[in-house]
């Protein structure tokens, strides 16, 4: 897109809100900034209302800093804690209903291809584990089966946090949560594998304790989706409020989960994706 679109019309510099002026002057649009530059530019997420220590907030901040082309990205969010912070994201984003983000993203991506055949427009569907693994799973998987060219990112806090901490399909087996008063009876859904088998050319899981890894995965997922087809990333997002640990311990908990093997970093890459990754990562 034309970055001039963000430029403020002459004479309006003074009356535009400061946030907007900062975005125009110091935002990441068109500048190819990344996670390592955090702290040096006006970020895309600001003043969100999520709890202190929330893994979703940290993950979203890292995702937004990792987008290869934020000036050409539209996000489709969905109901959940994460949706409460979409209003504070400086990228066009849609909130529709609960769990239908991948169906909405399908229509949106196809519409943008019709309207802008010569431009690259990235669509990223983002939702929690309830939206992606449970209520919206059918629509998520069908977008993968159909080979829709956008990325799906799951904020996996292993519970329905926004409604007060209920068990979800992504909760660990045995977890005692609301609606699972005697502990969850079945295992965490194997979503990275489901994504791979359902047609994602790239499927990965990661945690915000590894920002560089996360950035690399987001960039890979978004760029591969443009050319090849659906991609999936799952990010562990600890929820201090419902899992009842100190907000200051979120990252420690993340590392403990990695160490114990309860949360594994994974990356499945299809042969075609492998080829393409070589090309665009060499170019740098």
């Amino acid at each position: 897109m034309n970055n001039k679109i963000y430029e403020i019309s002459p004479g309006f510099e003074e009356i535009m809100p400061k946030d907007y002026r900062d975005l125009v002057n110091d935002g990441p649009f068109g500048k190819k900034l990344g996670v390592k530059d955090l702290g040096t530019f006006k970020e895309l997420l600001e003043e969100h209302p999520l709890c202190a220590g929330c893994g979703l907030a940290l993950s979203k901040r890292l995702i937004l800093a990792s987008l290869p082309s934020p000036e050409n990205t539209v996000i489709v969010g969905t109901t959940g804690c994460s949706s409460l912070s979409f209003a504070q994201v400086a990228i066009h984003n849609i909130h529709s209903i609960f769990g239908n983000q991948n169906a909405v993203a399908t229509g949106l991506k196809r519409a943008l291809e019709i309207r802008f055949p010569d431009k690259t427009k990235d669509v990223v569907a983002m939702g929690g584990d309830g939206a992606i693994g449970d209520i919206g799973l059918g629509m998520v998987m069908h977008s993968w089966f159909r080979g829709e060219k956008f990325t799906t990112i799951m904020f996996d806090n292993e519970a329905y946090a926004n409604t007060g901490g209920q068990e979800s399909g992504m909760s660990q087996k045995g977890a005692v949560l609301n609606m699972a008063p005697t502990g969850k009876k079945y295992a965490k859904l194997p979503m990275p594998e489901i994504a791979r088998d359902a047609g994602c050319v790239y499927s990965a899981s990661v945690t915000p304790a590894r920002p560089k890894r996360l950035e690399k995965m987001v960039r890979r997922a978004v760029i591969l989706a443009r050319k090849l087809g659906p991609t999936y990333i799952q990010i562990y997002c600890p929820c201090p409020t419902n899992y009842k640990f100190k907000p200051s311990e979120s990252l420690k908990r993340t590392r403990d989960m990695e160490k114990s093997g309860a949360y594994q970093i994974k990356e499945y890459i299809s042969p075609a994706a492998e080829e393409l990754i070589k090309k665009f990562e060499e170019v740098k």
Partner: protein
Amino acid sequence: MSDKAIQQKIVEPEELFFKAKREKQFITGSEAVKESIKRANVDMAISYPITPQSESMHLVGDIYAQGYVKDYYRGENELGVMSAVAGASMGGVRVFTATGGQGALRAFEMFPTWAGARLPIVCAFFCRGLNSPLTIQPDTIEIGLLLDTGMIILHAETAQDLYDMILKAFIIAEEPDVHLPVAVFADGFFVTHTREMVEIAPEDIKLPPYNPYKSPVPVMDMETPPVRQMRDPFVMKSNYVSYACHASWQQEVRAAAERARKHINKYLGGLLETENEDAEILIMASGTAVSQSRAAIIRAEAEGLKVGLVKLKSLRPFPKDEIKALAKGKKAVIVPEFNITGWLAREIKSVVEDNSKVIGAPRVFGGMTMPPELILEEIRRRSK
């Protein structure tokens, strides 16, 4: 995306609707849907099967293959389809879909969402009864359930109506002062699967394309500053400002539907049509109940009974002032319906001054046809 593209000349809506020479074709209601979409310059259509709607979306698929529509696919279920057309509409293209009965209810959550997001989607609904017990037969109960979703609601009596209403619905939906979804209803089988003479415009002309930048809410394409915008108003905080914001948005959606009146008048010749409205007894109906009423009126006239007919074409906005005026001084207003709940009688009662004269009868449901004799009996009873 389709790799073919048919060459059609873009003409003004007035030309396509009123001036172009029309040709008569003996076609089904489903085929009338196809003919309207051919000329509607639709970018995307998304389908999911449900009887009696399937055939219409098969035919839309055929014209996609011929190059009349740019993108088309079968969605995974009704909610998926209604979500995807929302995404496409937010992305700034003209979209069409159709459903009916159980399918409409499965997707229900999206309809108020479409209206709330001010999406000019056109959706055809082909009515059928709802479970339980299961039926696939025509029954208009679903209209009553969808009346308050914020959508504009039109009800076709015939295949001709269906052709005209769908085509005109795009233009009404996309008016900047309206910019709302339009639901075009037709009674399943009676309209979709029967043949009649339909007058249609030449197939080498089509409507002007949708201009997403005329939308009262920003199109989701990152081409429209400012960037910090949500397509649908998102007011989750519990404070006075958010209450006021939410309430005023809802009022604006309802007001936008009311503003559609002038466009419906212009393109459809009014929200309702009347015949012999001076008669002491009036029948008010929508959909194929109108056709059955016509048959009853012919027999009533043969018996010397004079009866007027009011055909409601638009149910949202509801022609309340017109109905109130028409009912004034009448002996009886008979409202025959193809459903058990009598939603149309309820609507009419809510606007007529002396509503004890509104007769919510006869009603058939579960897929039965409406014998004109039932209407005739009602006319005889009220004529005494």
